[in-house]
């Protein structure tokens, strides 16, 4: 009998620490499937940011380096410059990438570092208990925006995929979502493409994934999936914001 669905080889069978309903697990699975398909697991080094994603090494049977909060793109730069033949990916949350690590992500992208960054945007600081993130939506209640985020005092949610797409060093910048089978299929394609960009030495690639945090959003898992569709996508539109086709782009 042929197996038509199984755990990817690039995913361990460790019990997950993610909350039930969280889409980090889907992101992990898609990245593992992509590594399997591209046959790169033996030469991939993963660099998790700090946050819910920090235990990356439990789930991917690959070499991994734990970076300080926000600094994964700089650590990834060091690894890639030391070993250009390896496939390097960073995996960051929105607090990690869009707050404390803004400088590191912008400059790694702008240098065109030939690395891939997976950006899990759940509009909240997950691991530390639901504080406001730079991507928290206007009006969204968090523990540190208890009256709802107000642009007058807290500014606007940052659109990282669009922001990074303005930089010449970026080969591929896209936003996908993880809330429905159709979107998951699209996300998978984007992840494969991002890795391929790196393998073809095209430069920096980033995949932003709209994700749930039902625990800190204080809603049921099903409602959280609906929230991606009804609240997040209207502000964080899906799509490809930059895609380089040739190496000589200037």
């Amino acid at each position, binding site marked *: 009998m042929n197996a038509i669905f199984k755990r990817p080889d690039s995913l361990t069978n460790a019990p997950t620490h993610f909350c039930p309903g969280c889409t980090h697990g889907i992101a992990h699975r898609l990245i593992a499937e992509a590594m399997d398909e591209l046959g790169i*697991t*033996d*030469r*991939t*080094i993963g*660099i998790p940011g700090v946050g819910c994603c*920090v235990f990356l*090494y439990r789930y*991917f*049977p*690959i*070499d*991994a*380096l*734990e*970076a*300080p909060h926000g*600094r994964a793109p*700089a*650590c*990834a*730069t*060091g*690894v*890639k*410059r*030391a*070993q250009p033949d*390896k496939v390097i990916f960073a995996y960051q949350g929105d607090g990690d990438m869009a707050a404390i690590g803004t*400088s*590191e992500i*912008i*400059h790694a992208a702008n*240098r065109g570092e030939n690395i891939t960054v997976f950006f899990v945007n759940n509009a909240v600081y997950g691991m530390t208990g639901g504080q406001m993130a730079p991507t928290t939506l206007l009006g969204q209640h968090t523990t540190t925006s208890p009256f709802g985020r107000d642009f007058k005092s807290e500014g606007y949610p940052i659109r990282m995929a669009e922001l990074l797409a303005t930089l010449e060093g970026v080969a591929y910048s896209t936003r996908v979502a993880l809330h429905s089978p159709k979107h998951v299929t699209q996300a998978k394609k984007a992840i494969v493409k991002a890795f391929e960009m790196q393998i073809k030495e095209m430069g920096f690639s980033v995949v932003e994934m709209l994700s749930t945090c039902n625990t800190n959003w204080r809603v049921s898992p099903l409602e959280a999936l609906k929230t991606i569709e009804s609240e997040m996508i209207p502000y964080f539109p899906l799509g490809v914001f930059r895609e380089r086709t040739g190496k000589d782009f200037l």
Partner: protein
Amino acid sequence: MTEKKLTKGNIALAEGSIQAGCLLYFGYPITPQSDIPEYLAQNLPKIGGTFVQAESEIASINMVMGASASGRRTMTSSSGPGISLMQEGLSYLAGSELPAVIVNIMRCGPGLGGIAPTQGDYNQAVHGGGHGDYRNIVLAPGSVQEMFDLTIKAFELADKYRNPTMIIADAMIGQFQEPCRLTPEKPVELAEKPWALTGRKGRDPRLVKSLYLGDYEQEEHNLLLKKKYDEIQDNEVMVEMKNLDDAELIIVAFGTPSRVAKTAIGLAREEGLKVGLIRPITLFPFPVNEIYEHSARVKNVLVVEMNTGQMVRDVRIAAHKDAAIHFYGRPGGGFPFPDDVLNEIKTALGGGPR
């Protein structure tokens, strides 16, 4: 080859790093150390190395972390304000047991301060600066030749103990020129790094991390680190000792003040005052035993520093309880001169502790 060339301290250090096999440098400009990145930007690409001017010192030290985790010899350099920004990364390097060489050509602070030489970053280098329970190995060159030799030594120690190693030199040592032999005393050897992240091909996956959440895991990790630091203290002390046999007073000083002290000791001896010198070359590990033994006999110790008294505390802890500890410090923007030190010697020998 023993031929010597007139060389600037910073250049001797930069060349030392290349000869130590460091092919990856990451840094951000700041006076008075910019000759180091400038030299490496020129010379690393020629030998297939990598020079990256990072967007900040925070990025620099994290790039160093990535290159180090890859199993390569790697370095960054900066001065006070930049080193402050690197402290987070330094703590992570120590916690993750990653080797790297970090150079601080000290300028005077606090704050933006000035670009004149000082030793104001002694505490930051020797007693932490970053969070948590960790130690850097700290080397303090006192000449241009040592800028070269100790850079090679720094890479050796960093690899041997899988620990960040700092070279701290005041701006004077970095900026002046002296004849220097620009070849290593013994051949440089690069050891295998069976922990390096190189992709799992043919083996189990490897992990470099500093997070320990399980019961007692962090304690166990910290106790292992402590064991390593004790080993370093027992085995790696480097110290220069001069004129101690008949000394009635010992000067303890490192870097530029140790050179001023040597001149002052000459002047003192011309006047019949018997003065000797202990110059710590390693600041961690600190020459505790040497200071204890000699202070027990001599009873008078004068610490000369270019700060308001940072190493003097370590000397007090190390010294025999009956020794009188005197201190003379200039915190940067001004210099200790030999005559000043001579006056301090006379005061110390004439009076008691201050």
